[in-house]
């Protein structure tokens, strides 16, 4: 496709394709083929499983691997302790799953695995169907916890402390809107950040290829700077992969704090 047209299609990397002839799989009328997206989720889960597995030796004096796994769990534990308090301890499994899954999916999608012929890396987190499900899950947990712990008193979330009485008709509406926007902002932030980075890398690589094909002059003037920029943006994208996973986990824990402790 892209190669046949002689140029790089920066959107091709986001295309979902059914794999292994599972195109006809259906449950209750829903079309659920095992796609390349599902395959990369599976790879993410497998890598994550092996990573955490390596930290389960439970030695008193940890080795390097155990230390790495323990610092990841400790990081999530501290995040929740700092943002939610002692009640945050029970959300460690969920926030850890969220953070680790997003982080591993982001980073695996950035790996230069396309160099291996026949392998097309795919980043599940660059699809809002995926990030949306994660965001809706986080939002649902916030709602359930909030109403479970505070009942209808949870609505006092929309009236922050110190609201002047003459603004009582406006503030709750503003707060309600900002509350309802949360799942969308969660989902779109991650999806846009991942997609933008991948598109940028692909566009720059198409500059390198096209300019080099059109002669040594253009290759030098356009190709080499684009290539250097690509290297820098690769480093930036690895940073973004970590930051977006962190932001998703951090915001979810902040929302959980609202649900646990109100304001």
């Amino acid at each position, binding site marked *: 496709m892209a190669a046949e047209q002689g140029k790089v299609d920066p959107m091709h990397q*986001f295309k979902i394709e059914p794999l292994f002839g599972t195109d006809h799989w259906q449950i209750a009328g829903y079309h659920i083929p095992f796609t390349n997206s*599902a395959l990369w989720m599976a790879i993410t889960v497998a890598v994550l499983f092996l990573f955490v597995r390596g930290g389960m030796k439970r030695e008193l004096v940890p080795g390097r691997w155990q230390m790495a796994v323990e610092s990841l769990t400790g990081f999530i534990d501290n995040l929740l302790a700092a943002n939610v308090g002692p009640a945050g301890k029970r959300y460690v*499994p969920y926030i850890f*799953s969220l953070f680790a*899954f997003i982080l591993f999916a982001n980073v695996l999608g950035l790996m230069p695995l396309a160099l291996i012929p026949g392998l097309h890396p795919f980043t599940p987190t660059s699809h809002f*169907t995926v990030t949306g499900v994660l965001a809706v899950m986080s939002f649902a947990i916030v709602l359930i916890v909030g109403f479970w712990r505070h009942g209808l008193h949870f609505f006092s979330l929309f009236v922050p402390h110190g609201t002047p009485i003459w603004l009582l008709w406006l503030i709750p509406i503003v707060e309600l809107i900002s509350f309802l926007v949360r799942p969308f902002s969660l989902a779109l932030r991650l999806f846009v950040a991942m*997609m933008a980075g991948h598109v940028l890398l692909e566009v720059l690589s198409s500059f390198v290829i096209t300019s080099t094909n059109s002669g040594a002059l253009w290759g030098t003037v356009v190709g080499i700077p684009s290539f250097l920029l690509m290297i820098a943006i690769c480093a930036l994208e690895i940073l973004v992969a970590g930051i977006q996973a962190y932001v998703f986990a951090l915001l979810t824990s902040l929302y959980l704090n609202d649900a646990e402790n109100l304001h």
Partner: protein
Amino acid sequence: MPQIAQLAETYASQIFWLLIFFGFVFFVIGRGMVPKVMATVESRDKQISADLSAAEAARAAADDAEQTWQAQAARQREETQALIAKAKAEGAKTSEASLAKANAVIDARMADADARIAAARANALGEIEAVASEAAAQIVARVAGIRVDAAAGAAAVKEALHG
């Protein structure tokens, strides 16, 4: 963009497989493995703090033992000093007593000797008087040819001798 273009045909598959795989992550890794990892960290922290407090307690005990030992040493030193002082005082007392005894003996002997000396002197003096009065009588008899009464002579001699 495929995310939107393929939305209708892929959303079910995306949601289905995400729920499967994220569910695996949550239930197996998040709820199964992560608590074990954290329990390991916690038990290590607990052990470290227990070891630290044990070391602290041992240090306190050592300090305590040293203090007791020092107090005991000071007390023993005091006792020793008292014992030495007592022995010194006793020794001084005994030597004083024996000295006093010896002094008394010496004094007695000296008094005895003095008495004897005085007696001897008196004796000697008496003899000298007798010899002198006899000699004086004889001298008087030879020179003057006068027989002097022995008693008068003795009185005269005594007067001459004693002034």
